């Protein structure tokens, strides 16, 4: 009871919902329950649904530009109808539209879906529930975090509708394309809106991250020592630390960029010659490389911000569904820590070809390759957890196994790229696209799917449909490999990323059919995601109802709450914790939840 958090209103009145069985909700208005909610569980759902909207939009963008890449000669009159004469004249996506689509796809998927949609959802949902707290350290800041994200979303969305189009210089927003209004149509208003949206996004991430860290460190229930935390919480903890330390640096980079754009400074711009104005710029001595340092100092930790939550979710789901303790708990925590530290020391591997001092380059090669060690430890532990497990193949479990498969495939190509000698050839080719989509995009998306299928019963008190889940899984994993595996070959053959039309290049004509194949699969995989969307929304109202609060026979605290937990999570006192989260198959018992006291006859762990 010592550090039990109690909810009270501003006037000091206590609404301790001991006797309400979690049903004090109906005292709340619609607005305070669904819109400006301060309940972490509702905020989690807001992040999730907003993230899903963005995932659909971002995915649709990729389908559109894949149409261009797969069928460069074909005209799709419907595109002219939908996108208008300006962006798709004659049913062909214009080069400006193509670059705008690629850029917005990248930005949206990296930041809005896999950062806000993933961390925002599961950190909000799981941290208070799994550490045994009634809510976040500051529910109000938490609510603000969502609304800043929402504002960022609105601004980003609006940039699609301005006359000169959204920003189109790539998700990394390198100058001069991002710094010079005259560089391209998207560099005008589109870039202003991009910067505003990203600044709002950074604020949202920081508010969220602060809260996650302080909740995990300060609000744990009695008995929940750090070493008894489920791995989900450890992963979300390191994610939040990475975000809190790296996003401010990105913001500094953006501030300098804003000054270059609007107030005539020369941080990133030099006296380059512009064909559009036929003059050289008045700026002197700026360097775009400076931006790259600032960007990648965030950018690399950012990719781990995206993958770590998935690692945590997968560890938890795997142990539960293999009915075995996670293999090497401390090694799992240690490798998360090692990854988090190394994440700050490797950013220059994105800059091997910028004229980086070769000696410095070799230091970064070494540090980059070191990341393979903790990554391999994690993979080994996941596989050993599966080994001889009593596996229950739920959709959540399948996606977790899929995650490990993707992480292995993409991690291996990371080792190729981490060698600067190989990277000189592979940099900015489709090999990079293949690498990071497999290891980050798809893997992390799989972690997110796994988490949704697994915790859906806790979120909505109903199950999602399993059959649809299986179909969704198999189409998605087969499709993902069919899309991204061939891209390695294209990259090895030197096919650069971010070109508008490869069919006019003699060297890349050989890939016309392959590109068409990739585009077709992409279309199918995109369509298959509607199975998931349908399953998700249909099950909210029509899914099979939960009859037990602990459907997966799981050990963690969230399953000790009532099926429909109110704000405050536990109707009575917060349970006390007596053991770690992974007592599966111990002493002949299938599982022993964390709140069960250690019995006299129990063997030690």
């Amino acid at each position: 009871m010592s550090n039990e958090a109690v909810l009270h209103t501003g006037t000091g009145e206590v609404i301790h919902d001991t006797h309400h069985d979690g049903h004090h909700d109906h005292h709340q208005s619609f607005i305070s329950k669904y819109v400006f909610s301060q309940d972490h569980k509702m905020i989690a759902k807001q992040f999730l649904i907003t993230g899903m909207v963005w995932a659909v939009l971002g995915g649709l963008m990729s389908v559109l530009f894949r149409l261009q890449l797969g069928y460069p000669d074909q005209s799709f009159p419907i595109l002219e109808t939908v996108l208008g004469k300006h962006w798709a004249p004659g049913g062909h996506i214009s080069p400006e539209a193509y670059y705008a689509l690629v850029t917005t796809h990248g930005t949206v998927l990296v930041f809005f879906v896999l950062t806000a949609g993933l961390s925002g959802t599961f950190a909000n949902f799981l941290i208070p529930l799994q550490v045994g707290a009634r809510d976040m350290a500051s529910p109000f800041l938490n609510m603000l975090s969502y609304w800043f994200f929402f504002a960022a979303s609105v601004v980003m969305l609006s940039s699609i509708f301005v006359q000169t189009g959204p920003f189109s210089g790539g998700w990394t927003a390198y100058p001069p394309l991002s710094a010079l209004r005259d560089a391209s149509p998207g560099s005008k208003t589109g870039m202003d809106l991009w910067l505003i949206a990203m600044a709002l996004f950074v604020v949202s991430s920081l508010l969220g991250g602060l809260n996650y860290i302080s909740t995990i460190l300060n609000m744990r229930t009695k008995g929940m020592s750090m070493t008894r935390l489920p791995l989900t919480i450890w992963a979300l903890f390191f994610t939040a630390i990475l975000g809190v330390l790296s996003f401010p640096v990105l913001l500094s980079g953006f501030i300098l960029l804003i000054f270059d754009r609007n107030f005539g400074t020369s941080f990133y711009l030099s006296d380059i010659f512009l064909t559009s104005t036929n003059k050289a710029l008045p700026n002197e001595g700026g360097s775009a490389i400076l931006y790259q340092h600032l960007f990648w100092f965030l950018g690399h930790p950012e990719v781990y911000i995206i993958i770590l939550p998935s690692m945590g979710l997968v560890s938890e789901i795997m142990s539960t569904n293999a009915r075995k303790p996670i293999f090497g708990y401390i090694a799992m925590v240690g490798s998360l820590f090692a990854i988090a530290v190394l994440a700050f020391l490797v950013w220059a591997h994105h800059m091997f070809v910028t004229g980086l001092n070769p000696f410095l380059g070799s230091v970064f090669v070494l540090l980059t390759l070191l990341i393979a060690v903790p990554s391999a430890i994690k993979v080994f532990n996941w596989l050993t957890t599966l080994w001889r497990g009593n596996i229950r193949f739920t959709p959540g479990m399948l996606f977790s196994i899929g995650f490990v498969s993707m992480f292995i495939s993409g991690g291996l190509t990371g080792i190729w790229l981490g060698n600067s000698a190989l990277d000189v050839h592979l940099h900015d080719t489709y090999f990079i696209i293949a690498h990071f989509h497999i290891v980050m995009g798809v893997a992390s998306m799989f972690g997110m799917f796994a988490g949704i299928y697994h915790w859906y019963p806790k979120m909505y008190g109903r199950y999602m449909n399993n059959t649809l889940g299986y179909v969704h899984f198999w189409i998605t994993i087969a499709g993902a490999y069919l899309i991204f595996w061939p891209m390695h070959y294209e990259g090895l053959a030197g096919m650069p990323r971010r070109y508008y039309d490869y069919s006019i290049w003699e060297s890349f004509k050989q890939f016309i059919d392959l590109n068409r194949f990739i585009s077709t699969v992409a279309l199918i995989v995109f369509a298959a995601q509607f199975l998931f969307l349908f399953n998700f929304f249909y099950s909210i109202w029509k899914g099979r109802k939960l009859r037990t609060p602990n459907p997966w026979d799981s050990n963690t605290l969230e399953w000790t709450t009532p099926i429909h937990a109110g704000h405050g999570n536990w109707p009575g006192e917060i349970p006390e914790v007596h053991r770690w989260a992974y007592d599966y198959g111990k002493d002949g018992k299938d599982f022993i939840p964390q709140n069960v006291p250690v019995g006299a006859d129990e063997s030690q762990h």
Partner: protein
Amino acid sequence: MDMAVSNQQKSGRIHPHKFTLWVAMGSIVMMFAGLTSAYVVRRSQANWLEFSLPNIFIASTIVILFSSLTIHLALKSFKAREMQRYRTLIAITAFLGVLFAVLQFIGFTDLHKQGVQLFGQGSNPSASFLGIITGLHVLHVIGGVIALLVIFFGAFFSKTKIYSPTSLEIVATYWHFVDILWIYLFVFFTWIR
């Protein structure tokens, strides 16, 4: 309705809001570390204007140091329930915060008069960096002044008497933090050039 979560804690455990502030300060440190590293990187390249800091920055340094003292005393008087003294000290602290911002601004006007242009065509990154870094710092100071005024006037409108020094402690910690941050920046700009 505004809902807050309070913690019935074991003695010795840090208040979650205080802890949040510490993490936030770490975050702010990273932002300035990013900017000053960028400064160092850029300085080693060609076309870097050398100029000396405006003298008035010494005055502003003294002002902000002094304000740290006054807020410390304000907190002490609050805990001793010497409310009259507390109000005076808070007023002085807020005033010193604003004075600091004004002095910084005067410093920049001085630079401008000497022909060191901060922004716009013909500006040198060396001056632009100084402008942006100190400007961001001033924004953080002003944020502190606003927070101070919010808890100060908030007390007048609250129906119940407030005895808990927590929010004041949080603002005081932040205040010392922006003070130290300025000392760092001042030393950085003096020594590194």
